[in-house]
């Protein structure tokens, strides 16, 4: 590198400017919280704080903020610092690294399907039943499916907030014109693949574009969710033995994929639709049905779409009803400070969130807190209560170190399934692709 050897003319001016900049910097530094300087000393945070991490964007984020505001109003003495991070792998990576680095949040949101791996990795704190009971969070306060699915060796590590199933949105105007609504205004049941296809055809005649829509490209979770819902109704499994075995049932998987492909090849669904595009089509009435997690409720309420929601249909009647779902849970990451005060503050916070289940349910999620779920208030909350039964039929993603919401598992399977729906791949190819990719993951010894 060449270094210029210039005389120091003008240095005084620069020194002046530099001095000003330094002064400004010092001003800002003194203005920030003392946390900044704690980065030099690795000191503990002061007592009375509560750090909370979540992954809620969009409408969920707005509702969560309302709930946090309420909590803060009731607990003015607690310095709450809530952080929202982008969801999926980055969120869980950050949460793990923060826990390993001994600066985890006091409370964090985790998907139920991601929580178990963190337990295995020793990153979460076990929740003592007595402490839970003290804050009104005993096991019997929660729906059995969400509570039990979260246990590891019979021990509790998470407190379920909700279940978020895959559901069916339908345009009420379109369905009425298509003759799909009964006398009471409810959708006539779609109880077989044929009935489903027929309903889509009739809806298509009304919209003039498509019967229904599901996101197929640039998106892996949605194709996985619709596949898993139908495949589970057939009793199919993808992986077993903690992810060490790949047990895809070729016949069942091919049946589901062929059915999904028939919807797009017959022009009842658009073959190519990304997440935002599928929303737009339903919102603008180009499709009578829309398949997605219930959280999109706020989008269509804002867009003033004439719509309602119900359970994802039970098409394969050989087995019991099943639908892909996951749950948001509260977890307490392993923390260097194990004082009872901190634990109480954290559980108190969780209890306050659950007390606001009404606010949360307005965003579409099925509450898992029974005092609210079983109240008349929730029964009257429409269309949310229409699909509350999905919580007990939830088909959670199978266990494995590479599995869970937004994980490699969903990316690998969802991209193969999406390619079939989009007409870029055949069902047989997709099954082969899923199997070989999953086998690679299954063969890898679990790092946890």
């Amino acid at each position, binding site marked *: 590198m*060449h270094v210029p050897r210039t005389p120091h003319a003008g240095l005084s001016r620069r020194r002046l400017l530099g001095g000003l900049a330094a002064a400004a910097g010092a001003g800002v530094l003194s203005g920030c919280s003392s946390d900044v300087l704690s980065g030099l000393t690795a000191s503990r945070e002061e007592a009375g704080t509560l750090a909370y991490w979540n992954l809620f964007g969009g409408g969920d984020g707005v509702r969560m903020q309302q709930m946090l505001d309420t909590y803060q109003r009731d607990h003015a003495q607690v310095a709450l610092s809530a952080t929202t991070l982008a969801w999926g*792998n980055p969120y869980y990576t950050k949460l793990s690294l923060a826990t*390993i680095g001994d600066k985890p949040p006091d409370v964090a949101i985790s998907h139920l399907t991601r929580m178990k791996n963190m337990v295995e990795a020793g990153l979460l704190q076990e929740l003592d039943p007595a402490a839970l009971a003290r804050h009104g969070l005993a096991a019997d306060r929660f729906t059995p499916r969400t509570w039990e699915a979260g246990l590891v060796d019979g021990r509790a590590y998470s407190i379920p907030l909700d279940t978020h199933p895959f559901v069916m949105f339908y345009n009420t105007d379109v369905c009425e014109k298509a003759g799909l609504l009964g006398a009471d205004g409810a959708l006539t049941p779609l109880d077989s693949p044929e009935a489903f296809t027929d309903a889509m055809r009739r809806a298509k005649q009304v919209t003039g574009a498509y019967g229904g829509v599901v996101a197929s*490209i640039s998106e892996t979770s949605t194709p996985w969710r619709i596949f898993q819902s139908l495949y589970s109704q057939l009793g199919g499994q993808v992986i077993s033995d903690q992810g060490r075995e790949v047990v895809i049932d070729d016949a069942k998987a091919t049946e589901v994929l062929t059915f999904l492909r028939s919807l797009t090849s017959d022009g009842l669904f658009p073959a190519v639709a*990304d997440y935002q595009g599928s929303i737009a089509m339903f919102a603008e009435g180009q499709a009578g049905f829309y398949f997605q997690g219930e959280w999109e409720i706020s989008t269509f309420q804002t867009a003033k779409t004439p719509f309602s929601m119900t359970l994802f249909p039970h098409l394969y009647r050989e087995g019991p009803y099943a639908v892909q779902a996951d749950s948001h849970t509260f977890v307490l990451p392993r923390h260097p400070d194990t004082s009872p005060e901190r634990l109480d503050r954290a559980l108190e916070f969780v209890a306050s969130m659950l007390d606001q289940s009404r606010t949360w349910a307005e965003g579409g999620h099925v509450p898992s807190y029974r005092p609210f779920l079983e109240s008349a208030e929730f029964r009257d909350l429409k269309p949310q209560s229409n699909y509350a039964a999905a919580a007990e039929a939830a088909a959670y993603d199978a266990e494995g170190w590479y599995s869970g919401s937004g994980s490699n598992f969903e990316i690998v399977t969802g991209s193969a399934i999406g390619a079939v729906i989009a007409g870029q791949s055949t069902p047989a190819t997709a099954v082969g692709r899923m199997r070989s990719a999953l086998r*690679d993951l299954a063969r*890898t010894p679990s790092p946890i």
Partner: protein
Amino acid sequence: MSTETVTPAARPVQPPEPSTARPPGQGRAATGFLLPFGLLYLAFILGPAVYGLIMSFFDASLVRPGLGGFAGFGNYTEALQSADFWSSLWHTLWFTILTTPPLIVLAFVFALLADRVSRGRWFFRLAFFAPFILPSAVVALIWIFMYTPELGLLEVGLAKIGVTAPAWLGDPTWAMPSLAVTTIWWTLGFNFILYLAGLQEIPRDLYEASAIDGAGPWQQIRRITIPMLGRTTTLVAVLQVIASLKVFDQMYLMTTGGPDFATRSVLQYVYDQGFTNFRLGYAAAVSMLFFLVVLAVSAVWFTIVRRQEKEV
């Protein structure tokens, strides 16, 4: 710029003779002067390098203490057989191919044009160089917004001239070119400055002489400028290739390696395996393989520079 610019890596290779008349006892003083650097170098570069090499032979996990079980060459064979590893290498290479030529050609052209402009050069320096100094996160946020479907500036702008924009970051085919465009916008300024400096090294009288000789601007560029900038171009190309090999920020920030892993670079593969999947041993092995690739590229660089030295 003065004219004593140093050629890349050539000068430091031969330590100049220390002057002859020196008091004795320099060994101890030298140790003292080298110690602060030496300690940090051992603790944070050499030490970890050795530790990383050892770790790559074990099934070390992020969430378990110690090295874990001995894996032999298991991590290496797994990486070499892994389609994901090879595709991440290919993505890195594809990114290099997409960014390097435009970054060289455009920077050269812009510098050439700017060199001919007598006034307002500060403005061009600002326009082209300002993006380079911004953090990748700022650049990524701006460009994610530019690429947003339906309301991004690019889609709306192209629609005005009747072009239907692709789903930039959402389409596996377009995601990498989109990242390349962002990268070109971001880092072009660096090469621009290098070329501008190189141009100023060319003696003006060469141009004057050739102009008198009847050479037009185009001939001057071809006969004088391009050959005289040969060495700068080598430098730019090598720095560019090495920087591209280490690409991480743009992918991590703008696509998280997606869609469907179509833009995952080697470094992000290391990050994913080590810190998302907790597989530290495997990630260390991939790091070592990646290091070999960087070494190979650097070796090519040295060879080229050596040859150029000889030619001059």
